């Protein structure tokens, strides 16, 4: 099943798509925000897609708060790598 884009509340679906990034990042001016929300209230396709888009952004941002662990395949610790590079740069490796 597919949906045809349409104009609702004075905004075409593709205009909503254009504004989606600023909508998700809460960066829309109030007047545009009101029009986008009026469109979303009546457009299932944009609501579904916008929810999916916001979900992707939230998934990416969740990684920001996740603890940073070294990748399991790392053979050399960052500290050892730093020491090796430092000593190599000073010409006293080995």
């Amino acid at each position, binding site marked *: 099943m597919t949906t045809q884009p349409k104009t609702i509340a004075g905004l075409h679906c*593709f205009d909503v798509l254009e504004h989606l990034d600023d909508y998700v990042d809460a960066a829309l001016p109030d007047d545009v925000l009101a029009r986008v929300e009026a469109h979303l209230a009546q457009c299932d*396709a944009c609501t579904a897609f916008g929810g999916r888009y916001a979900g992707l952004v939230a998934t990416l941002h*969740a990684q920001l708060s996740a603890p*940073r662990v070294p990748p399991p395949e790392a053979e050399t610790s*960052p500290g050892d790598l730093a*020491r090796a*590079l*430092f000593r190599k740069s000073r010409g006293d490796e080995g």
Partner: protein
Amino acid sequence: METDEALLARIAGGEEDAFVTFVERHHARLERFVACQTRPGDSWREDAVQDTLVTVLERAHTFEGRSSAVTWLLGIARFKVLHHRQRRARSREVPEDLAALGARAGWGAGHIEAAYELGRVLETISTLPPIHSEVLVLRDLEGLSTREAAEVLGVQEAAVKSRLHRARLHLMAALREEVEP
């Protein structure tokens, strides 16, 4: 905790422990920034990380604090990635019509998958064109502001916003095409 700026000043003065601390603090971020722009099997991934760190050693004295140390570090890393990838061959984007891109990303599709799995998302980012992967990593994974990302990328803030929007849509499209080729 000693600031990055203080560490860089001591690195410039030739102090090994400052460099070790700086690398331990930022290595995971640096590695992820590079990894998200390389494909499995790219042999130069580790070279780009190490080249970046060597440049930090060599250029610490040039850090003036006009941007954050992270912005400075990722700017160097980006240059190294581009160098290894041979920049001229890679980042000419032919902008896709937004409506067509939205359709590829799933607008109007009857079925939309319920949730994203982070591991798959990260893996898919590494398959995107660099012009998209780098802005996604800087803004969405590293949390840099639009202004900071613009500094790293050497473009205007408006270009960062535009690229990020398209990058997110491209990522959605790529994830969708993995499931429904």
